């Protein structure tokens, strides 16, 4: 990989003052796990809603020695992951990889890799709506007060309503969690299947919402618990099938429609995990 950056632009696109401002916000976020820190989000060359928060975090922490992996829906090859990866290759000249264990920084949209993350890795999540209470309380001033005063009754009311209506909690992604027993946090639209991976992780987890202008963080070895009721405990999704390519029974599976008569097959969402398993077996 070349390490030439784009002429006329600073390393990783953002100027140093902006990076410093974002790092200060990150430090604040790490000091208060799960608390949303406002920051002066900049317009980026990719649109709001397409990962600008994650991109700004990555741009602020990445350096020439880093190795970057970018995934979307668990795969390195989805269009937006390709677009973001090439953005950093162009502006930071950084080495990129598809192998989870080789990456120092992983930027992700909507999934956590199946491979366990280790000490020294940073995972950067792209977040559309950072406020977990948003759909129950549209007012920003009110939700800020609720977080400050630890008033989370309305969150459990929502879960109660789900059980009353559906017999179970009806949130299957962006499932709210409580961090270190204090802040209720939106983990970004990862499937609830991935929630347990956030708990007591060895890696540093950073969350960026560019359009909403918030950063939050979970430092390594932090307690992260999915909200539930004692008699309706949190459960992850299960499939009755194995991956059609690698045979995995414990990874998140994508459903592929194979013909127009309802034929379907199930395949690992994490493309790197799947490819590695196939490589090992053959």
């Amino acid at each position, binding site marked *: 990989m070349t390490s030439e950056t784009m002429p*006329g632009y600073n390393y990783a696109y*953002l*100027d140093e003052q*902006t990076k410093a401002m974002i790092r200060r916000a990150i430090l604040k976020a790490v000091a208060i796990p799960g608390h949303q820190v*406002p*920051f*002066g*989000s*900049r*317009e*980026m*060359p990719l*649109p*709001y*809603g*397409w990962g600008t928060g994650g991109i700004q975090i990555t741009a602020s922490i990445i350096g020439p020695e880093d190795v970057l992996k970018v995934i*979307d*829906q*668990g*795969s390195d*090859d*989805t*269009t*937006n*992951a*390709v*677009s973001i990866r*090439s953005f950093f290759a162009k502006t930071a000249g950084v080495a990129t990889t598809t192998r989870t264990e080789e990456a120092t920084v992983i930027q992700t*949209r*909507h999934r956590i890799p199946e491979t366990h993350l280790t000490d020294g890795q940073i995972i950067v999540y792209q977040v*559309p709506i950072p406020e977990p209470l948003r759909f129950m309380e549209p*007012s*920003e*001033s009110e939700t800020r007060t609720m977080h400050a005063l630890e008033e989370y009754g309305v969150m459990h009311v929502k879960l109660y309503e789900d059980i009353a209506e*559906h*017999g*179970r909690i009806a949130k*299957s*992604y*962006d499932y709210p969690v409580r961090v270190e027993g204090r802040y209720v946090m939106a983990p970004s*639209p990862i*499937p*609830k*299947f991935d929630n347990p991976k956030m708990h007591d992780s060895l890696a540093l987890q950073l969350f960026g919402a560019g*359009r909403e*202008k918030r950063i939050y963080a979970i430092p390594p070895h932090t307690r992260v618990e999915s909200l539930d009721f004692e008699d309706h405990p949190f459960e992850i*999704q299960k499939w009755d099938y194995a991956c*059609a*390519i690698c045979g995995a029974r414990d990874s*998140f*599976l*994508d*459903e*592929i429609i*194979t013909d127009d008569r309802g034929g379907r097959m199930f*395949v690992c*969402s994490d*493309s790197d995990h*799947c*490819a590695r398993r196939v490589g090992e077996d053959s």
Partner: protein
Amino acid sequence: MYVAVKGGEKAIAAAHRLLARERRGAPEIAEISLDQIREQLSLSVDRVMSEGALYDEDCAALAVKQARGDLVEAVFLLRAYRTTLPRFGYSQPADSSRMHVRRRISATFKDVPGGQVLGPTFDYTHRLLDWSLAGEGKEAGTEESSGGDSGVGVPSPMPRVLDVLGREGIIESEGSGDDHEPADLTRQPLDLPAGRDVRLQNLARADEGFLLAMGYSSQRGFGSTHPFVGEIRMGEVEIEFVPEELGFPVTIGEITLTECETVNQFIGSGEARFTRGYGLTFGQGERKAMSMALVDRALRAPELGEEKKGPAQDAEFVLYHSDNVEASGFVQHLKLPHYVDFQSELVLVRGLRRTVREEESGHDI
């Protein structure tokens, strides 16, 4: 056997090549130049500068060309470019009283010192498609424009209409005199409650269509403020900057501005006074400046003790949804793959349906 889809990178490269071809259009047609856009589509350029929050006519013209005429896309390009520009500091406040006025009208008085100067306006045109414009090479200014209308006889500086009311003490004065440094939305995120300085900056960058609708709603009873146009003025204003090394202001150039001041519903009974609304755009942007003034005034409802009757008076609603770069990004992000979350929902919904079917057929899980 099914192989995981690859080739996203190649697909994107091909899409970009196709885009470039579409942008160019039929090759036998002359390529449009930045000069042509700047000169002949100047109102597009003006809008892109205002919402892009960057005064540079050539950059804006390039953005319009690159965006193939999609002005919201062009605004995005300009904003992203703006992020990369180094910042020297803040200029002195622009003094619109010293504007070289090219257009100035007032609806509150029949005649005013300085006169009603119509300037270049669509206002009294008949909206009939003019087929003579379909040809090219037409000589500029044969019938429509005549001599003597580029500032001859227009006093400079042009006295302000609202100063007339101000001298009588019958209109509130602008500025609370608390002299605090205005906030900068390009550096700090929006925080509520937002002061008037923050609101005005947000509205200055806001989408014209959105503000137009909000302003319109305030006229139709969703929080009415009885607006009158006190003054609209358009023309060139000098921008001054104080370089640290010199310590005194120097003029760094001049820009075109459109300014709108409205006179609104009075407050108080004994010491009754009219209230104000304010709008400002780069270039010629009257519809936006007027809409901005209407919404500015509507958002002052809490401070003036007025009941909130419509969304135009709701700061949280207006200020969080006014930016078309944010709005466009988030609306269009729905095109991105969401199949993992959709898969989660499929699993959930299939589970719910299975439970119901099992209950109906008397089976226990």
